């Protein structure tokens, strides 16, 4: 029956000719025979890649929105998806590794010589295609590391003179690495490259069969021993493939390929950005290339082109080395080959050393420096625009004679020129307000040359109002709703009223000339809008502005105030958020004391003031029994425990008994409240510890390659929500409520912990399954070994 089928096939295909050729094929046996197996192993990995790649295509979705999630889906929801994906990733790396070894072995054994030039050419192109597979496949999971590595990789292509920009756009499918790049890479990875590689591989294998195995020059003197390709060599090949399969399975189970975090196009590049290992030597080399250019070509572009030239030279090896084995060209080529191998290995090792903690900060600094340079360029463009725009802003209205004259008075007195110079940047000037609007007088050009006429008191001219009258002076406009509407319908007009209720306003009304008025904070000329970062009333500059007076010990002494408020605030969590983290919503002086109506918050209103941001805490405190108690004894509400200006980030150490805790400021050790605080602290500690332990467990599972994003999500919800909420409940001073919430949270955390334990158990199960597979492979290898020996013996026995 089977024989009939073969006859039927043979009649139509004539494929027995191939079997016949294979039967007659002999493989030389010598001390370098081992290297003959590398091509077969590379082919084996290619077959694994095609098989697992086809499987992955059943679930993978090539779009920026779905790629990461679909890989996550494969790893968590699809049966054995974790195994298929891990094998695909590992096999890709092993295929490139095997291809490199195959290339170098062929090179050093001089197997590329006539008549095998085209075999070599096809092989080198296949290696380049493998690198293309690696480069395009790296991006497909759409994770952070791959995203930025692709960005850098395609940027490098862009440095090539003339065609670089075109190449980068072609590779990316646009100007940036986007979802379009992902679709494009997917197309390359699953259609174009496989089509090219399959055709070329067929040609390569045909040539290998046609020419047989090359005998290295060093072995030509000795009597040639051979073995039959079928079955002797093929069985050994099978042995090697089975070993490779065992290695793959072990790697997939013991070192599953991590997925990392989803790519965020707007996130900063991670510090450990790196390409796949086989691009590392080029990546590291380019990093060492200094900036600069020669004849208009950047050094980096020269290095990229040099790598391109090396690749081209690799293709030409058979045509460069056509002489005898001991010819100088041959020896030079061998030396160059060793040098290239040493360079690639050395730079790859150096590259991996460079991500060690010692070198990491330096790399980060390097990247920041590069990015800084770009930022500096952008800043220069912006500055240029600003400089171009500034005269336009100044020209918003016809320049008055006041400004014209005062600008020229700088030669006599800088004080006379300063207001005119500052005025050009003033927010009022931009709205068309002129000097005459505040100072009166006659700004017309007709009297420009006559200062007395221009500044005639009869024409309403005043130099500047008395300090006591400044608030009213500004308030003429800023308190006039009709007037202000012309410029901004939403503008406030209650500043003067507020000011009069403030400590500053009250003192001002008493004739105190040292107290702050409008100009003390806003300036007189050159007033900038609040949103302008250079304005003295911009959120980040308010502490400096208030501190100008409130940090002056001599001045404050007169009012019985300490001059340390601002310096204490600078050490607070609020200052950290505002000045260093750039959180513009973090409070400076005015957020608690008010702006124009500046006054210290009253003892009874502190929970409202602090509660304007810390709403939950404020609400809980106001509802607690402590609210009335604090008011009775005249204790400040929030400040009793947290302080006022020097508020530091609260930790659990504030709670409980003993020195350093907030409670111990009022309570004696062992009293009823002290005991309650111990209970509270114990409940919070238990909850925090449960979260930490579950987190550590899940982290262990995650770095072992297990997909635990769901329990991690739940744990994060508890960490960010539940624990914060429990800590906030301290402000209710309701121990039972707090402890109950902590226990509820601990119960939820236990579920995440169980999921982590289950993930680790699953990991053990997978490894157990692998152990069974490895035993099977081992039995097969032993059987194969015995078979090979038997076949060899039978052949030798004749």
């Amino acid at each position, binding site marked *: 029956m089977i024989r009939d089928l073969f006859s039927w096939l043979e009649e139509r295909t004539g494929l027995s000719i191939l079997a016949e050729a294979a039967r007659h094929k002999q493989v030389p046996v010598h001390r370098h025979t081992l290297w003959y197996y590398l091509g077969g192993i590379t082919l084996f990995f290619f077959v694994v890649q095609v098989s697992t790649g086809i*499987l992955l295509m*059943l*679930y993978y*979705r090539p779009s920026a*929105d*779905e790629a990461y*999630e*679909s890989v*996550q*889906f494969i790893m968590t*929801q*699809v*049966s*054995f*998806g974790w*195994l*298929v994906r891990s094998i695909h990733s590992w096999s890709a790396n092993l295929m490139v590794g095997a291809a490199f070894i195959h290339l170098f072995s062929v090179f050093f054994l001089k197997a590329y010589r006539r008549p095998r030039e085209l075999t070599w050419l096809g092989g080198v192109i296949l290696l380049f295609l493998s690198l293309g597979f690696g480069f395009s496949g790296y991006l497909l999971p759409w994770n952070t590391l791959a995203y930025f590595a692709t960005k850098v990789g395609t940027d490098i292509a862009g440095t090539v003179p003339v065609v670089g920009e075109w190449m980068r756009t072609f590779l990316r499918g646009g100007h940036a690495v986007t979802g379009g790049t992902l679709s494009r890479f997917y197309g390359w990875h699953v259609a174009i490259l496989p089509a090219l590689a399959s055709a070329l591989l067929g040609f390569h294998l045909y040539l290998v069969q046609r020419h047989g195995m090359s005998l290295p020059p060093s072995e030509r003197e000795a009597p040639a021993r051979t073995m039959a390709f079928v079955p002797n060599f093929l069985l050994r090949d099978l042995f090697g493939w*089975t070993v490779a399969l065992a290695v793959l399975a072990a790697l997939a189970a013991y070192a599953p390929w991590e997925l990392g*975090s*989803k790519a965020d196009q707007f996130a900063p590049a991670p510090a450990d950005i790196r390409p796949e290992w086989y691009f590392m030597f080029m990546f590291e080399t380019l990093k060492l290339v200094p900036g600069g250019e020669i004849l208009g070509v950047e050094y980096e572009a020269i290095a990229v082109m040099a790598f391109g030239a090396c690749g081209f030279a690799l293709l030409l090896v058979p045509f460069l080395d056509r002489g005898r084995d001991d010819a100088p060209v041959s020896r030079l080529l061998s030396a160059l080959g060793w040098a290239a191998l040493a360079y690639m290995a050395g730079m790859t090792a150096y590259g991996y050393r460079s991500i060690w903690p010692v070198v990491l900060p330096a790399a980060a600094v390097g990247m920041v420096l590069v990015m800084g340079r770009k930022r500096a360029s952008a800043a220069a463009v912006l500055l240029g625009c600003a400089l171009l725009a500034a005269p336009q802003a100044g020209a918003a209205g016809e320049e008055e004679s006041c400004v014209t004259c005062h600008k020229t008075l700088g030669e006599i007195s800088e004080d006379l020129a300063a207001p005119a110079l500052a005025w050009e940047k003033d927010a009022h000037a931009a709205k068309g307000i002129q000097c005459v609007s505040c100072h009166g007088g006659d700004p017309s050009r007709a009297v420009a040359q006559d200062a007395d006429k221009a500044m005639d008191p009869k024409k309403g001219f005043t130099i500047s109002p008395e300090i006591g009258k400044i608030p009213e002076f500004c308030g003429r406009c800023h308190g006039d709703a009709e007037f202000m509407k012309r410029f901004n319908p939403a503008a406030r007009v209650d500043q003067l009223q507020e000011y009069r209720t403030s400590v500053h306003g009250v003192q001002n009304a008493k004739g105190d000339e040292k107290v702050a008025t409008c100009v003390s904070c806003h300036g007189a000329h050159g007033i900038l809008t609040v949103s302008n970062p250079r304005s003295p009333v911009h959120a980040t500059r308010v502490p400096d502005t208030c501190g100008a007076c409130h940090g002056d010990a001599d001045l404050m002494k007169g009012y019985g105030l300490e001059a340390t408020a601002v310096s204490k605030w600078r050490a607070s969590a609020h200052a950290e958020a505002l000045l260093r983290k750039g*959180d*513009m*919503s*973090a409070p400076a002086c005015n957020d608690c004391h008010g702006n124009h109506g500046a006054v210290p918050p009253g003892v009874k209103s502190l929970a409202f003031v602090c*509660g*304007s*941001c*810390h*709403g*939950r805490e404020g609400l809980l405190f106001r509802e607690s029994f402590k609210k009335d108690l604090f008011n009775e004894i005249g204790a400040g509400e929030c400040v009793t425990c947290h302080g006022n200006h020097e508020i530091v980030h609260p930790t659990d150490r504030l709670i409980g008994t003993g020195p350093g805790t907030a409670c111990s400021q009022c309570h004696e050790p062992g009293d009823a409240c002290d005991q309650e605080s111990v209970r509270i602290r114990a409940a919070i500690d238990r909850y925090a510890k449960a979260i930490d332990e579950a987190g550590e467990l899940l982290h262990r599972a995650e770095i072992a390659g297990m997909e635990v*994003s*769901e329990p991690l*999500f739940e744990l994060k*919800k508890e960490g*960010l*929500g539940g624990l*914060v*909420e429990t800590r*906030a409940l301290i402000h209710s001073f309701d121990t039972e409520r707090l402890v109950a919430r902590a226990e509820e949270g601990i119960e939820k955390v236990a579920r995440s912990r169980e999921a982590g334990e289950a993930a680790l158990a699953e990991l053990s199960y997978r490894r157990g399954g692998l152990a*069974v*597979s490895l035993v*099977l*492979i081992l*039995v*097969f290898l*032993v*059987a*194969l070994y*015995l*078979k090979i020996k*038997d076949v*060899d*013996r*039978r052949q*030798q*026995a004749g």
Partner: protein
Amino acid sequence: MPETLSGTRRRFVNWMLGTSAGALFAAIGFPVARFLMPPEVPEAATSRVLAGKLSEMPSEGWKIFRFGNDAGILIRTPDGEMRAFAATCTHLSCTVQYRSDLERIWCACHNGEFDLNGQNAAGPPPRPLTRFDVNVSGDEIWVSKA
């Protein structure tokens, strides 16, 4: 002349080879066959996710659900309409909640408030919450990226 295997031993080696090869193929075929069978959840929750069920909506009128790797908030408005937003506060990334007394989405960390369109309405949040589309199919509430 090298010694060759006896017939029995050769048969044993062949049997061992055939059996272990069969077992090996089974060991490869089993995971592949399992992989080919689609899981119960037919697709990755990427642009569309089952956020919950109407019958299981908490009495408070809101719940947090998982959307990819991020949190979302599902709210039943006073009019009975279902709305969904990203649940990460745009200020310091705390998870927001719904306050039915305020009829606002509220971030407890720094008193940030968003209206029922996701617009930042009060407090420090600098940007609105991303709004998602909600489709109710029978008892199921499906949320998708708008």
